[in-house]
């Protein structure tokens, strides 16, 4: 009886120490789940979800404080990825936050109206606007995420969102559907197969 109690106590003490050691030795800095969620989010940093950027939203989802259907620019695709990642059912996008744009957008500053106030530069979450006080500003198209945060910031309404130019190199073949499908360019006639071996 005593031997059993002693050995069980010894074992639990040993495992307790092991677990304690492992908790310190293999400690993970940061929040790996939030990292994975952040990797799925489109990084527009637009704040339409109600959080100040993609990372805070990812942390809120990881903490169970936010729903997965709040990312407007990500749309269905991001919701589906998040649902797969977290093992929950996908939900329709919360459209009270905004409607997704049908195609990627980019901000354009009409330079003839820009007064050089730098307000848009301060609003841009990815530093995609260059300029200085009383100097005309301009958007670096390649860095603009299309978040629209600069649009309300401009006091003279000189910023416009335009669809991103379609580059021929970024063109993708359309998904074949019965109505819109490109048949093979032409038919050639098949000859009897000589090869039998």
């Amino acid at each position: 009886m005593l031997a059993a109690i002693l050995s069980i106590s010894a074992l639990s003490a040993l495992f307790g120490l092991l677990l304690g050691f492992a908790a310190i030795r293999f400690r993970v800095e940061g929040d790996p789940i939030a990292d994975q969620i952040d990797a799925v989010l489109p990084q527009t940093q637009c704040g339409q979800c109600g959080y100040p950027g993609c990372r805070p939203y990812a942390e809120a989802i990881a903490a169970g404080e936010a729903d997965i259907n709040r990312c407007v620019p990500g749309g269905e695709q991001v919701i589906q990825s998040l649902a797969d990642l977290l093992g929950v059912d996908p939900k329709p996008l919360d459209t009270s936050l905004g409607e997704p744009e049908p195609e990627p957008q980019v901000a354009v500053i009409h330079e003839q109206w820009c007064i050089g106030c730098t307000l848009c530069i301060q609003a841009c979450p990815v530093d995609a606007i260059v300029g200085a006080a009383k100097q005309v500003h301009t958007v670096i198209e390649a860095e603009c995420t299309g978040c629209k945060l600069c649009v309300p910031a401009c006091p003279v309404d000189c910023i416009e969102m335009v669809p991103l130019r379609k580059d021929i190199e970024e063109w993708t073949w359309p998904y074949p559907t019965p109505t819109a499908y490109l048949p093979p360019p032409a038919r050639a006639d098949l000859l009897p197969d000589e090869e039998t071996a």
Partner: protein
Amino acid sequence: MTGPIPGRQLWHFHGGLHLADHKAESTGRPVLDLPPPARLILPLRQHIGQIAEPLVRPGERVGKGQPLAAAEGYISAPVHAPTSGTVVAIENAPVPHPSGLDAPCIILAADGEDRWAEGLPDPVPDYRALDALTLRNRIREAGIVGLGGAAFPTAAKLNPPPRHRIDTLVVNGAECEPWITCDDMLMRHEAAAILSGVAIVQHMVRPRETLIGIEDNKPQAIDAMQHALNAAGLPDTHVVPVPTRYPTGGEKQLIQVLTGKEVPSAGLPAEIGILCQNVGTLHAVHRAIVEGVPLIERLVTVTGDGVAEPRNLRARIGTPFAELVAAAGGYTPDVTRLIMGGPMMGIAVHTDAVPVIKSTNCILAATPALTGEPGPAAACIRCGECARVCPVRLLPQQLYWYARARDFDRVQEYSLFDCIECGCCAYVCPSHIPLVQYYRFAKTEIWNQEREKARADQARRRHELRQARLEREQREKAERLARKKAAVQRRKAGGGESAQDAIAAALARVEAKKKARAAARDKDDGEGRD
């Protein structure tokens, strides 16, 4: 001399199709030299890789052969003026591309003089005088890309990683796709020049053996090449007729037929010691080195039931398709579509205003008899015909299921990127499923997702850097404020005495400055008087 050389073993690749070749339509008429058109459209990207950077401005007069745009980066190619004239514009114009979108082009108005530019590289009749690096640079500067259709910059292909020694040079004269005959005609008429190009590449990469593979439905080309080879006397070089079977002209398929070696999945022929070059490319290499002429023209087959007189034309790069069709007798009334390339792998172009580019081997004007009825696809019945004919031994059915379901991870597990888009699977599909279009959709969509991922990562990095900067600025501001506050507190704590001290010190400083200024003035005055 149409059978295989006695004693030379040939191999087979898996699958493939035996198609009616329709070569006779366009080989019956002699090759016609097409004069330069009045207006040439020269896309800045006619090759795989980085877009070329324009060197000229609108309004500039240029001579024939003058570089108009320079290669940007290693995998890129320059663009040359195919004739003399004036640069009219550098703008977006229609190009032969399945999207039908415009792309940046240099528009050149010909002056009709066809005058050579000055300062072109000198012809080098004896290429042996130059080393491989010099030759490679000249090939690069001549704007040569693979003329078989892929348009990969040739200079880069001729520079395999040093760990791969080139054992065999494979010369691709197979031209397996129906209707296309430009390589056939080139071999018939320019065999000596092609072999000169072969000799130059042999001098550069020093292969142990060179095999010139030509499909046995081109007896005249085989004869011409064999005669030229006998005359040139290149050592360890053989003309090898190969059985006619689509797609023997695919690089990896021809290598397999000639050597029995298989290029590894996602690998390059250099990894198994093989370099493959198209006959047209080698002809262009000869022209660039021995004659000093950059790539400004090429043979183009204009054929199909949709043109009156199918034939081959020697056309300047940049000539609109419409001019070539006109030179081939114009359209027949029942023409329905225009295809660049052959019926199996070509792309439908949206207008005949698009120009001939370096990779334009064929313009196929198709009639309904050729294009067939584009009807709705039926369901896949899992018959497995597609897997039987796939020359790469993929599982087209599985690729189709996953591409259709947009499951891009699984479709890559089934080696989507080894697919050469030869179209054999779609050809034999009894349900008429546009299989290749599914694969092309999946490939371009995967590339698109990779680009978007890279963009998102970049945005995340920039946002994080910005956050860090804002935090640092705020911290610095707080520290500055704290320092000031501390200074004020110190002064207050020190009492009035220290404040009076400070005033006294300031007054002393002002006094000292005044004295120094007065001294300087006196000195100046003194100098002025002297």
